[in-house]
């Protein structure tokens, strides 16, 4: 009886985070407009993801990636549409992988989405989905959207964004530029800081990265990193100061060569860094607006 109850709870939890993987795969369409599924579907997990991705695997493995389902659709000639459904383990992680690479207009699919040049990306629940055309992307666009909508409908209920994003100040926040990630590979592809991992980022760290509107100039950047404990935050704080702004010494403030300011501050196990601030007052103000409580 207890065993059955536990199983039921697990099933409910899985569904509430975004549907059952097997059911989703079985319900996927074999044909979208005049594009037909060809070849065998393939599923890759954390061990085999390298077989599928050239180098990009690390970007996903830096999150709680569980598995990706791949189905390829073909029409005539060499053109192909590739559907990838990534089970990221939780809605926060699905949002994370989506959020690190945003450039295009929303497509109105899933919880958040974008489309440009033959690439549709969206997330819903614990799933991140990519649909990409290899070949003539204009010709493939209607099928890409049709497929995206169809997949989104199978992914179960919506999920919550990372709780950590609640730390971000609201005023001036560019909402479609928020990113959440853990590791240096994601940071470097989002906003290059240094060739080495001077913030000691890894899967145990949570990073909220945000841009704030600034009149007459490029946005001010706020990056908040949560470390497992204060000792790890202390170490990273010192490493960042030494590697990036040695002249700041104890102040945590330094004027960069473009006359904009960088500031680093720590509160317990959290390190906050502000880049591209027009002056020290703006940097301080943004730090004070962080919702620590």
């Amino acid at each position, binding site marked *: 009886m207890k065993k059955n109850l536990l199983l039921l709870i697990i099933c409910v939890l899985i569904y509430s985070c975004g549907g059952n993987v097997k059911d989703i795969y079985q319900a996927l369409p074999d044909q979208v407009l005049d594009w037909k599924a060809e070849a065998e579907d393939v599923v890759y997990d954390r061990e085999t993801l390298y077989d599928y*991705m050239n180098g990009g695997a690390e970007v996903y493995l830096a999150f709680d990636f569980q598995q990706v389902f791949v189905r390829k659709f073909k029409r005539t000639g060499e053109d192909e549409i590739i559907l990838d459904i990534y089970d990221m383990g939780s809605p926060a992680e699905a949002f994370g992988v989506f959020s690190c690479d945003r450039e295009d207009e929303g497509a109105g699919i899933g919880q958040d989405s974008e489309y440009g*040049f033959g690439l549709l990306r969206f997330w819903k629940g614990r799933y991140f989905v990519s649909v990409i055309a290899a070949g003539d992307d204009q010709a493939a666009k209607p099928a890409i959207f049709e497929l995206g909508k169809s997949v989104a409908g199978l992914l179960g209920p919506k999920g919550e964004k990372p709780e950590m994003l609640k730390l971000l100040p609201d005023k001036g926040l560019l909402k479609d530029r928020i990113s959440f990630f853990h590791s240096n*590979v994601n940071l470097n*592809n989002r906003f*290059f800081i*240094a060739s080495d991992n001077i913030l000691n980022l890894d899967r145990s760290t949570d990073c909220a990265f945000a841009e704030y509107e600034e009149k007459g100039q490029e946005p001010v950047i706020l990056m908040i990193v949560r470390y497992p404990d204060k000792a790890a935050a202390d170490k990273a704080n010192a490493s960042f100061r030494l590697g990036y702004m040695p002249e700041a010494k104890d102040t945590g403030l330094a004027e960069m060569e473009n006359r904009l300011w960088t500031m680093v501050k720590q509160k317990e196990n959290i390190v906050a860094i502000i880049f591209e601030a027009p002056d020290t007052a703006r940097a301080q103000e943004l730090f004070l607006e962080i919702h620590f409580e």
Partner: protein
Amino acid sequence: MTKLITRRDFIRGSAGVVLGAAIGFSAEPVKKSRVVLIRNPEALDANSHFNAEVIQEMLDKAVMALLDKSTPQKAFQTLVKAGEVVGIKSNVWSYLPTPAELEQALKRRIVEAGVKEEDIGIDDHGVRENPIFKKATSLFNVRPIRTHYLSGMSGCLKNYIMFAPSQQALHPNSCADLGSCYKLPMVKGKTRLNILCCLTPQFHGRGPHHFSRRYVWNYCGILVGKDPVAVDAVGLELIKAKRRQVLGKARELPPVPKHIQVADTKHGIGTSDLNKIELIKLGWDQDILI
């Protein structure tokens, strides 16, 4: 070890210096690290299809200039001899593979140099098990240039990762040790020519497959050299120039192509220092960028 490069190096404009590359290419010929860049706008037709005839001509001219020979046949005869077994290490990445026209142009000249057609293999993922590659006496490295999430740039050095027993073992630290592939027993001392296809380079990537057609442009060029590090160092300059033009100075460097410098300073298989590279430019010079 590579020196730490930070965002501030880009703001200062000193990132190239930190990477080991100085301001410009050497005007003095240094045979060891000669690299030839050839461009021809007719390499692609109006529909962006490759023109085999033009590509053959580009390869011929580039190799002749690289080796100071008067005909492509004479040039290739200095690279391979009759009776050899030759592996052409290509790249099959579906979004931007090595153009078949370039593979065939290369193969044609290798055959003319006296190598039997059945003794030439073209492969990518299967090189470690390919019987021709297993007994190859010479290798030719040919692949397109593009950016890469981890290594910053996929060039000739990165193309040899398939010879490694474990590709994953080469991923840490931005794939810094890719140059070690040139020292693997299957490879060491066998590479005769490195060809970095810049016909349609990709200067930035997006999505799971690091591909977006938006960031591919018709540069219509080919880089050729005997030194893979020098070829990649020049290729990186091209990628940086295009990124600077389109994405802005702060995003000039794809994060983070350490492996090119490390291949020089740690593995000693070539030069990454632009001051020690003689870059010969042939053909079309519009929007040449470097």
